[in-house]
């Protein structure tokens, strides 16, 4: 006869199975500080405020649309761009033929930072980590044969958003479309640039004005265009845990709502065109819960502004699988990781999705790796039957309970932000960045001490590395082509129109009396370049200089076993007795590469291990780096390079050191450097290269040995 068992019966049964261990040993504290139990039951659903409701209806926890994938699957939207406009155009067309449904443009770092390709500060950046765009002419080539009144185009652009969106709209106009027909998304989320992505140009105040100008213009003239993509993605990639990603992103969103309302817009004029962007990592259920929590919280937040249109309350989102979870070692494992993450995004109810390629930690994708990434989504959408039922994890004791916990934790963090006066203020004070860097240091400590497993990196390492074909870009060639095109553009345009457009921009910036996007479209039509428009506004707004602080102690305190560190500390003591000071390292970021997670991590962890660490500013030139190294008399320069600038910049650095008669300073490199480039770097005098997955104490020991 079936007896009615209770949780106590289960407890007993479980204890019996465990023998020595206790049931409480099975609890798992997530990086977010949430305690996860081994078993959830009906009781865990009691009193939760978010669980009721239907998809397509407020509070939208179960999805922003009523039918979700049961009617139409998510949009497959692969983020891509490299070299020149014509190369990227070819790549887009190949994708569109094979299942891609919407475009997503990745610009190169010169464009992101508002420099034309002929600017001396970007010799290493043109075409390398995205596509080089200098003007409307490049924009037209980029979308050649792709009708902009039909194709939805997403653009990741924040710093140089005015000239880039301006020339995109201008290219659409010259294709014969009307502005109102354009569909797609402009990222236009400047706040997270100051926090984690680092492609800002102007200081926060004028930057926020630009955001408001764009929301205002698009809500008036481009009803099908998402004016902003409020992004948590980059936070998680920079190290944030899921609660931080959620809380800070929603808090950013609130700031944008406020500036739009300050402009006199009605909440319903723009809120339906706000979109979001999440990163989806390996913590499967946490990600699903995060996405559901986000929709619930956003709808609660917007309710306070009394919208009339229900759509204002619905959070729509794009997702990308996490790049930082992918490894250089045993790279084919990444296909599996990406699949798991893509599934989490789908169970979380995303509207569009990018899946990463397995060569993520090596270089930009090849057409082969891009195909596998695309197919991962096609297989999920068309072979599994997952799409047939809406929000299938709803009602799961665990997922619903987790969702509620995330809401609670995120609210706490948002309260901290509110207490200092909102997100703009918090960012000025550097609070979110500091919290995220702390999370990043803790994560590295867990991996270095093998508390967290990464297959192929700190456990189950393969005996031999397989050769992987990677995409290699001839950035010298790309730059030459861009410079030639710029010359032609400048010869054939009407200079008086150019000057007139730029003067208007400057005046509007000074007097705050007309819409900067409107004027940027006009300037683009008149063949002003991205760099010229940026520079004109810079005259009024100035270029932002970040003030960066570095955390200390978090890495060392998060390492559970102190043996791992004591070996290094001992070596440093010996070094110090011998040479009269600690090993001194200058950690350097050169060019427009803004990936600073690794360099900041190395800096804080090395200081925790007992090094004296000098930190160079972002965007240094090799000349400046060499000067700083000599002035501070460091033993070693550690170049952290992730955006493929190494082959151009490191040789210049070596030359500069030689000029200063400082060849005795050793140079090492770290970051995303394809193994094929190691011999080249060693040949020009680099002592050692440390790639992705490097264990920090191991690297420290090796470095001390080098000195």
């Amino acid at each position, binding site marked *: 006869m079936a007896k009615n068992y209770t949780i106590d019966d289960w407890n007993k049964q479980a204890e019996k199975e465990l023998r020595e261990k206790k049931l409480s040993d099975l609890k798992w504290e997530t990086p977010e500080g949430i305690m996860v139990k081994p078993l959830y039951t009906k009781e865990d659903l009691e009193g939760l405020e978010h669980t009721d409701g239907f998809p397509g209806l407020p509070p939208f926890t179960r999805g922003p649309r009523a039918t979700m994938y049961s009617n139409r699957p998510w949009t497959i939207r692969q983020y891509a761009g490299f070299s020149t406009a014509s190369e990227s155009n070819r790549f887009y067309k190949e994708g569109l033929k094979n299942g891609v449904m919407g475009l997503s443009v990745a610009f190169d770092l010169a464009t992101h930072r508002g420099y034309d390709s002929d600017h001396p500060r970007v010799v290493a950046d043109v075409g390398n980590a995205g596509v080089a765009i200098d003007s409307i002419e490049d924009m037209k080539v980029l979308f050649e044969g792709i009708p902009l009144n039909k194709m939805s185009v997403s653009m990741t652009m924040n710093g140089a958003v005015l000239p880039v969106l301006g020339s995109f709209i201008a290219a659409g106009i010259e294709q014969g479309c009307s502005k109102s027909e354009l569909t797609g998304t402009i990222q236009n989320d400047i706040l997270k640039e100051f926090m984690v992505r680092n492609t800002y140009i102007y200081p926060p105040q004028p930057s926020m004005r630009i955001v408001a100008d764009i929301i205002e213009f698009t809500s008036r003239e481009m009803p099908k265009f998402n004016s902003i993509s409020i992004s948590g993605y980059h936070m998680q990639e920079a190290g944030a845990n899921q609660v931080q990603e959620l809380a800070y992103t929603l808090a950013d969103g609130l700031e944008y709502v406020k500036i739009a309302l300050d402009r006199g817009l009605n909440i319903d004029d723009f809120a339906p065109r706000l979109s979001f962007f999440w990163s989806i990592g390996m913590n499967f259920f946490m990600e699903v819960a995060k996405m559901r929590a986000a929709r619930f919280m956003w709808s609660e937040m917007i309710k306070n502004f009394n919208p009339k249109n229900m759509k204002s309350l619905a959070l729509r989102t794009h997702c990308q699988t996490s790049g930082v979870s992918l490894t250089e070692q045993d790279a084919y494992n990444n296909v599996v990781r990406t699949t798991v993450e893509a599934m989490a995004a789908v169970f979380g109810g995303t509207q569009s999705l990018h899946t990463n390629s397995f060569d993520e930690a090596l270089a930009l994708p090849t057409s082969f790796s891009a195909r596998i990434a695309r197919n991962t989504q096609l297989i999920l959408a068309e072979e599994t039957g997952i799409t047939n039922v809406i929000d299938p994890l709803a009602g799961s004791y665990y997922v619903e309970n987790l969702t509620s916990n995330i809401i609670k934790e995120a609210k706490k963090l948002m309260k901290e932000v509110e207490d200092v006066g909102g997100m703009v203020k918090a960012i000025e004070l550097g609070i979110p960045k500091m919290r995220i860097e702390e999370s990043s240091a803790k994560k590295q400590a867990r991996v270095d001490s093998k508390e967290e497993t990464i297959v192929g990196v700190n456990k189950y390492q393969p005996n031999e590395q397989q050769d992987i074909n990677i995409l290699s870009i001839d950035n010298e060639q790309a730059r030459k082509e861009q410079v030639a095109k710029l010359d032609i553009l400048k010869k054939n345009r009407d200079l008086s129109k150019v000057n007139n457009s730029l003067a208007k921009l400057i005046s509007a910036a000074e007097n705050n009396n007309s819409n900067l996007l409107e004027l940027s479209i006009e300037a683009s039509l008149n063949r002003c370049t991205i760099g010229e428009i940026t520079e004109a506004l810079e005259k009024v707004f100035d270029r932002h*200089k970040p*003030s*960066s*602080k*570095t955390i*200390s*102690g978090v890495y*060392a305190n998060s390492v559970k076993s102190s043996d791992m560190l004591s070996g290094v*500390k001992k070596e*440093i003591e010996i070094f*110090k*007795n*011998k*040479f*009269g*000071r*600690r090993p001194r390292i200058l950690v350097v970021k050169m060019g427009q590469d803004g990936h600073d997670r690794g360099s900041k991590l190395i*800096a*804080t962890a*090395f*200081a*925790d*291990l*007992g*090094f*004296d*660490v*000098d*930190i*160079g*500013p972002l965007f240094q030139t090799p000349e*400046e780096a060499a*000067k*700083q190294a*000599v*002035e*501070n*008399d460091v033993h070693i320069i550690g170049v952290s390079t992730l955006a493929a600038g190494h082959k151009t910049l490191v040789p210049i650095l070596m030359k500069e050191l030689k000029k*200063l*008669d*400082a060849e005795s300073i050793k140079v090492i490199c770290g970051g995303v450097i394809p193994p094929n480039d190691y011999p080249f770097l060693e040949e020009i005098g680099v002592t050692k290269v440390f790639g992705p997955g490097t264990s920090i104490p191991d690297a420290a020991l090796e470095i001390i040995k080098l000195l």
Partner: protein
Amino acid sequence: MLLKDYLQLNKISSKQFSRILKVSEISISRYINGNRIPNKRILRAIFKETNGFVSANDFLINDIKNIELNNKDKDDIRKLVREITLGSIKSLAKAITLVESSNLLDQKKSDFLISILPKKNNTIRIGISGVPGVGKSTFIESLGLYLLQENFKVAVLAVDPSSQKTGGSILGDKTRMERLSIKKNAYIRPSPSQGHLGGVTKSTRETINCAEAAGFDVVFVETMGVGQAETAVHSMVDIFLVLLLPSGGDDLQGIKKGIIELADLLVVNKADGSLLSTAKVTVNDYKNAISIINSARDSWKPKVEMCSSINHEGIANIWNRISGFIKERKKRKYFLENRINQNKNWMWDLVDQKIKNFIEKDIKNNQISYEIEKKLSNNKLNSINAANEILGIYLKNFK
């Protein structure tokens, strides 16, 4: 302590000692000259016979402690000094490393270097203090850029705290003076405090001298404004600035009277944007506070100014104040007098440091100390008597 010194101090001849140890006299003289290191058995015997004053360590570092700089060392340093005076930044950087080194041989070299370094009295040494985040680096950058335009050469010595726990440090100040740091006539050197208290390094004075010899006419010393930092920096500079944040009257109560007494110039920074009006109030509050306070310098009432370092506003005015102060001090001959006082302070600090080193290295690690501690643990001595015994040993060896 070295065997040589021990025997000399206690008036024991090598012959006598050789008999005590039961080894040949030749061996003893070899040990003394550092030509040979005694074996384990003899080391133990020496340790015992000298009551722990001479231990294994003393033989290992024998070659360094005893060494006189040879001619080549001296020539190298003369060359380094020549290059410094010709303005070589690399040589200046190397010299600063040398004066900061804790290596004994380096310290000898450093002493020699400082002794032959040309001294300058036509420079201006400016100390900058203030709570973390008040804007010291930003202020120095702004004033520094201004001074470059006025054809000065500017050096900045920034001290960053070394971690108590790991000893390592993050030297980030330069990042916050990015525009200044890339200028040709500016030199910024961040240094780890290496456990030295008081917001400076053990060699900040030596470093100032090096920078001046290299032709820098204005030297800033930036220090974090905590505890005794103010006094330490104050004793090394010609003018001492304290940076303050705009704040309401209530906060003023919390400001340490000591800081205002030391400051020659109080600067309310961040006088811009929404803080401008508060800044004005703060300036007045401080002016009132100062009127009832005795300044550390004769004949000078500290002044209160405000500026916005970020917007480069009020910077020229502050320079006028600084140069006005210096002119006035020179006219009244206080300037040189103060420099002489700086040297006196330097001397006493060195005496302090060397005594501390002696106690750290030669007494603390020594058998006798160990035994005294043991007596203390067994309640055979109380702390006061124990301390007196230690001091007795010290006096005996340093008479």
